[in-house]
């Protein structure tokens, strides 16, 4: 962060911000073509210390500044204000050109704004600013950081600042300061610290033996913390993948369990759910723009309903006519999948469509060591648990569920005691389809939504069903989790492709041991 040095130095030298207006020349520099000039202008403005600077820099980063006739304007909707004086320019000049920023300027802006915010009265703002300064390790920052630390009362901001100060102090000429810095760094969970501490292990770079000892101890602590965080991160990824597999495969497990039907169009039911989410999102954007944040809530019943409808339609028109012939059903549903994909392609176009995450599902929860748990995945895990709960209640506490379980265990006997197997078939198929639709809604938040999206999930869904068996829901859950977690852990060591191949091998081996899956239906048949 070399670029920060002059800024922070400047701030350190300020007793208090001056209350005079913004320097016109510096403001004009913001509108320059050349990045160097822009950066110089930003630094000049920070040096001035005017309280309006932060707002101006924020506008620049949001591309809300424009140049017209050599004058820099700040835009607010359709109105234009002179950036230097703040006076409104009426009428807003039509020939204005937006001031664009590239990565380099944006980086400078972020640093400048973080530095300015470090002295903000609001502790939340200071915390974010401190986090953004995270990887600074310049010794010249020390005076400023000391000053900020001295003023700082908030505990979490203090800890971040002291870590940053420690990093700067690593290069201090005084060995006791260095020792203190190394000891302080032991509590860090920032990956970059590993490199720094390793630098202090080398006798050539670090002459003091005591400091080297401390560095070794600190390094051990930091590395074990990072390793634990890594495992946690991988576990989370695995559970997240497992939850997606569960949503994708649950419907299939129910349909296969009840009817013995291999539905090759299952992936397309996922697609129906995903496209429903897209349509709902578009509808909200057009008709309820103030409520777009909550479109996923509306998309859930729509996705379920659409997939349910498609499933019932499939069942009534094609699958019922092939009752008792599971292999023909496979082929007919393959044809259905082609038709459904083509319908999507014709209706929505062959390209992927954009389903943006609402803001409460964007970003993530930052854990230590740079591990971020993405919010959308957390929500999906929660969602899949919710769906699982609802399905469990349905299967175990309702009449329909009772019939479904009966038919799964022994169709002939169930028929004999009066269970309407035909109707149960239809409802089970619809339910399975609806769950697939819900899976599609979830998928729309993390994956591509396109006509062929379902094709990527068929093999995985089948593997979950085959591995888990159709006796109980638990089978699908355990199988999905196992596959997800195993996949992620294998991937970390062997790479994505080999991991997948190994996983397929493992499934084949497990099936051999338990041909009916992990949770096979109870009872004995001649097939073993």
């Amino acid at each position: 962060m070399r670029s920060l040095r002059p800024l922070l130095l400047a701030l350190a030298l300020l007793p208090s911000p001056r209350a005079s207006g913004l320097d016109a020349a510096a403001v004009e520099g913001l509108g320059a073509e050349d990045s160097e000039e822009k950066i110089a202008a930003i630094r000049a403005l920070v040096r001035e210390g005017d309280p309006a600077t932060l707002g101006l820099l924020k506008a620049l980063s949001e591309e809300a500044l424009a140049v017209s006739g050599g004058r820099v304007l700040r835009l607010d909707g359709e109105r234009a204000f002179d950036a230097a004086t703040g006076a409104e320019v009426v009428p807003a000049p039509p020939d204005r050109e937006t001031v664009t920023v590239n990565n380099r300027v944006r980086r400078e802006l972020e640093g400048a704004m973080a530095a300015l915010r470090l002295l903000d009265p609001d502790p939340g703002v200071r915390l974010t600013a401190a986090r953004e300064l995270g990887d600074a390790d310049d010794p010249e920052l020390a005076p400023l950081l000391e000053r900020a630390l001295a003023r700082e009362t908030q505990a979490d901001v203090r800890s971040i600042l002291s870590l940053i100060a420690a990093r700067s102090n690593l290069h201090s000429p005084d060995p006791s300061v260095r020792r203190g810095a190394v000891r302080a760094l032991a509590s860090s969970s920032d990956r970059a610290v590993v490199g720094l501490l390793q630098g202090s292990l080398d006798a050539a770079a670090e002459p003091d033996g005591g400091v080297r000892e401390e560095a070794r101890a600190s390094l051990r602590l930091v590395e074990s913390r990072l390793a634990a965080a890594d495992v946690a991160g991988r576990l989370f990824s695995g559970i997240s993948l497992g939850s997606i597999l569960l949503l994708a495969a649950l419907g299939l497990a129910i349909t296969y369990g009840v009817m013995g039907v291999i539905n090759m169009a299952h992936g397309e039911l996922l697609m129906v759910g995903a496209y429903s989410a897209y349509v709902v999102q578009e509808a909200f954007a057009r008709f309820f723009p103030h409520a777009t944040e909550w479109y996923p809530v509306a998309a859930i019943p729509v996705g379920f309903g659409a997939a349910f409808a498609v499933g019932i339609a499939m069942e009534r028109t094609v699958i019922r006519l092939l009752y008792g012939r599971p292999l023909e059903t496979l082929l007919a549903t393959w044809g259905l999948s082609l038709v459904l994909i083509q319908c999507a392609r014709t209706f929505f176009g062959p390209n992927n469509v954009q389903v943006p995450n609402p803001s409460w599902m964007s970003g993530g929860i930052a854990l230590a060591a740079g591990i971020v748990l993405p919010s959308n995945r957390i929500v999906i895990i929660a969602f899949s648990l919710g769906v699982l709960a609802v399905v469990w209640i349905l299967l175990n506490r309702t009449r329909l569920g009772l019939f479904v379980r009966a038919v799964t265990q022994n169709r002939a006997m169930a028929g004999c005691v009066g269970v309407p197997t035909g109707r149960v078939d239809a409802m089970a198929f619809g339910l399975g389809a609806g769950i697939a639709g819900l899976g599609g809604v979830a998928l729309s938040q993390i994956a591509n939504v396109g006509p062929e999206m379902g094709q990527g999930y068929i093999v995985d869904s089948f593997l979950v069903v085959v591995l888990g068996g159709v006796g109980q829901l638990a089978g699908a859950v355990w199988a999905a989790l196992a596959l997800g977690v195993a996949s992620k852990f294998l991937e970390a060591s062997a790479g994505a492709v080999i991991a997948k191949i190994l996983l397929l091998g493992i499934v084949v081996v497990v099936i051999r041991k338990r041909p009916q899956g992990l949770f096979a239906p109870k009872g004995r048949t001649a097939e073993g």
Partner: protein
Amino acid sequence: MAPRKSLAVRVLESTPRAGWLALGAFSLLFLGVLPALHLFTPAASRLHVSDLVITVGGKIMCYAVVAVALDLVWGYAGILSLGHGLFFALGGYAFGMYLMRSIGHEGVYQSDLPDFMVFLDWKKYPWFWTGTDHFLWALALVLVVPALLAFVFGLFAFSSRVRGVYLSIITQALTYAGMLFFFRNETGFGGNNGFTDFKRVLGFPITAPSTRAVLFMLSAALLGGTLVLGRYLVTSRVGRVLAAIRDEEPRVRFLGYDPLWYKLFVWTLSATLCAAAGALYVPQVGIINPSEMSPANSIEIAIWVAFGGRGTLVGPVLGASLVNLAKSWFTVAFPEVWPFFLGLLFILITLLLPRGVVGLATRLRRPRRPA
């Protein structure tokens, strides 16, 4: 007991006379008339058979062999394999290695190694490429490697009594794993590019009309031979046991037969036939690529068999031909919406013609008798 008839007689008797006549007609047409018209008539003449017909025809005949091979395991032994494309592709790759070696120095980089190894910075052939510049060794690889894989997998799967849908799904898993493995460039089979840009086979230039005609005739011969072999197999004692296994496996076990060896036998045989078809397919099509191993491809093979008529040997030939012709036609006539029509076709066929096209033909041919 009457003395056992000689093999030749038994083979002759397994196919009815009408069948031999048809086979003769087929041979005349495909081993004689069509190649002759391709090679010996001038291009402008109405009678000329274009190279498009020869290459597409050869390709379809290779597909037909695969379909018959699948019918042997599905229609006659009840094993629905959704991964037969793997054996087809492996045979293709094995022969493809020989074809790549035959390019010699004429590749883009003019080196001993195939182009894809050059851009991976490899300096020599990996161990599994040794000997592939010899035609006979490549042929051995074509016939042995897929068969070995099939044998091992079959042993593994059948001895565990995995059946029905579960077996089909793990065959899918097998071909999917194969596809992923071959897509890796490090595996040494050209990754996504596969093998292409062939120049010659056995010294003959690969694009010469005579080479094409010979490959066409070989494909036809393989198809004819497969049908004869299949017919002999299913009418023999082994075939009866297989049919019994298909219909009621537990009972077969109770009667004292071990289904494992019968299933293994027909499974391995089927894989070998697929591999041979794959080896003939690759020089005719000019490219082999891991997407031949995709699960979708293998499902399509099952579609061909079901379309034509499962358990009839001839049905799959019809199925493979008709479906691929339909696809070729649809992709030109309705390039923007052809999957719609193809999908509809599959649905209607499975609903209305449960015994496939052959079933339809037999139904039409047999006059309805009053009850």
